[in-house]
């Protein structure tokens, strides 16, 4: 991922509760309104299921649940951000997404130590832009983490 890092300054801003998160535009395939999700049994609780994204069956992750936040009912502002990382395509359910901004590298600081270490692996850094605190996500971590949990779940199911 390192090689293009300097080029991708454009990021998409989305909201989860009171906080604002950003992900690089080059990973985003589109932003969709919520439409009917088919539940997939036997998967982690934050995997809400799959949707039909123009003929492609796409898994949907509820980021609130993924990040251990309190879930809240979906509303008009709820969006699905389609992201692809390393040939994986998934959708993130977020409270709202409506902003694309330029985020220079210098603005990003590594996540403050106080946040803790391993629990927040998926946070790559924090940027302070005009009084807005933006949290930069490490998409690979957001997605790989599930393998661990899913594996745990599976072993529970089988055992």
């Amino acid at each position, binding site marked *: 991922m390192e090689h293009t890092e300097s080029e991708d300054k454009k990021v998409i801003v989305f909201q989860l509760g009171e906080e604002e998160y950003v992900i690089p535009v080059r990973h985003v395939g589109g932003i969709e309104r919520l439409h009917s999700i*088919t539940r*997939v049994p036997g998967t982690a609780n934050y*995997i809400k299921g799959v949707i039909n994204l123009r003929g*492609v069956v796409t898994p949907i992750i509820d980021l609130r649940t993924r990040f251990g936040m309190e879930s809240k009912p979906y509303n008009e502002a709820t969006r699905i951000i389609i992201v692809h990382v390393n040939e994986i395509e*998934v959708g993130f359910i977020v409270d709202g997404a409506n902003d694309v901004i330029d985020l220079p590298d210098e603005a990003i600081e590594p996540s403050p130590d106080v946040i803790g270490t391993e629990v927040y692996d998926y946070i790559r850094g924090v940027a302070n832009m005009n009084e807005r605190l933006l949290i930069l996500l490490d998409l690979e971590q957001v997605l790989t983490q599930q393998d661990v949990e899913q594996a745990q779940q599976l072993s529970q199911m089988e055992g």
Partner: protein
Amino acid sequence: MDTTQYLSIFIDESTEHLNTMSDYMLELEKNPSDKSIIEEIFRAAHTLKGMSATMGYNDMADLTHKLENVFDAIRYDKLNVQVDMMDVLFEVHEQLLAMVEDIANGGTGEQDISDLVTKLEQLEKGEQPGPISESPTKEDIHQETSYEQAITDLDEFELSILNESSERGFSNYEITVQLSEDCLLKAARTFMVFEVLEKHGEVIKADPPVNDLEEENFDFRFKVLFITKHPEDELKKKLKKISEVNDVIISSFSINAYKKEKEKQLETNQKDIKKKKKAKEKSPSSPAGRQVSKTIRVNIERLDILMNLFEELVIDRGRLEQIASELNHQELQETVERMTRVSGDLQNIILTMRMVPVEQVFSRFPRMIRKLSREMNKDIAIKIIGAETELDRTVIDEIGDPLVHLLRNAVDHGIEKPEERRRKGKPEQGTIELKAYHSGNHVFIEITDDGAGINREKVLKKAIENGVIHESQADTLKDQEVYELILASGFSTAEVVSDVSGRGVGLDVVRTKIESLGGRVSIDSEYDKGSVFSIQLPLTLSIMSVLLVEIEKEKYAIPLSSIIETAIIEKKQILSAHHKKVIDFRGNVVPLVFLKDIFDVPQQSNHEEDEYESIVIVKKGEKMAALVVDSFIGQQEVVLKSLGKYLQDVFAISGATILGDGQVALIIDTNALVK
């Protein structure tokens, strides 16, 4: 020269030539004296040499050049075909395959070939005086043959005239006329030649044909087949009188010689045609096939895109059907019906376009078996039947490994060593038969060996040792159930590791793979007589018939191929056996599987307790299970989609499909539910 644009063609064609080569090499081993086979191999090697040299792959060109020399020597009886020689030739062949693969993967195809080159050179020198004397002879014979085969295509009518003429005292001549190179009106001169000829006899055939002669489509030289009572000299003189005729060669034409030549050719042609049938468009080098079927190469990606687009269409078709039936509009319904029919035909065509003969996978097996059997000092012949059977490309891509595994197993554990076979009164050479055929919506691939068969007691003992089954089960199992234990995971252990089969993984990977393709493996065996491994595969993976069922508000699809029947049973028919709910279904005790519990379906409504349950009886081999659902929706053709990379190995779900209303329905993997 920029050759990149030809790269993919080069790779395709080299692979084909190499396949042809190995096919013929195996045949050569069986009939070492058959010249026509050597000709084929020589031709393939020659073409490869030319292509690789043009593309600048020097190592490959070198190697093929040396290979060509060896075959050339065989061709002219300077060398005899021997087993050791074949070993080297196969080694070279493998090296070439590796090179092509390297090139296909973006490499340069450069590899250390000095060893092989030396071996080939030794082979080449083996029984011949020296490489220098070789080239002139080669040319001599070339000339001779090209002269002999001057006029070759005679139809029966022409033949009968020629036959009759010699009986009636006419002579048959083949006349070659050479016009002077500065001749301007070739057609006129030709006309004059023909005029002279026709005064003295009859022209049976001209080469090139008369049409071409009239249109001057030839270069200063043509041949005619001519019958006459006039002597040769007279003809020659008269023809030479025509101006701008440089030279006239008259030779007598013998029908017998022609026929012999023809027969020889026919034989090769027939072989070609047979080969052709087997290999379809496999070898563009064989003359018989080039004109026969017109094909174009299409990039596989385009076919995939076409398939995807069509899948979209199928989804919309489903939606249209639904709307039409809701609206109840006569004309709309008729139109939709027509569209459904047309798209059904379209579906068939697209599916057949993606079909590839299993030959593609099978072709490498003879080589593999040969190598393995030599490694293990066994004598094994492989018989391939039905290589032309077609399967969807996606399936073809996947079945290679399982088949390799089963074949290795047959070589290693199936066929006995020659001494042992002799003791048992069997022929020393073991036979493995690989057979593919269509039946209904399935393709069957069977691997039959006439080896030792499966020892029931041994298998049971090992299965109990490794904890696959419990001792108490041992006696109740039917023979076939016992055989299938060798496919169970955990059966094979590291103990049985040998070079050939069983690298500790065992045959369970075969079963897993085949089942993931929606297929099934079954085994039959007779002790000391041999075993049959039978693989059943669906024709295509992408579109299938399913039964849609509803559980609460969720819809699931069950593949029709695994359903025996559906039924509605009364609750009181449900029995309890060993804490499990079962039903008595046509004399069988079938366990009930409550999908609601398995899939953790959220309770939507408190609908009144029903006295009835809807069940779907599914099978997996001999075993059955009854899936309990809320209601049946109906049968439908659906497009199988994967859940994507992110969601792999979801329990009891094999994929998803998109319904007419755009909703996603999950496809149930019934194999995971039948225990």
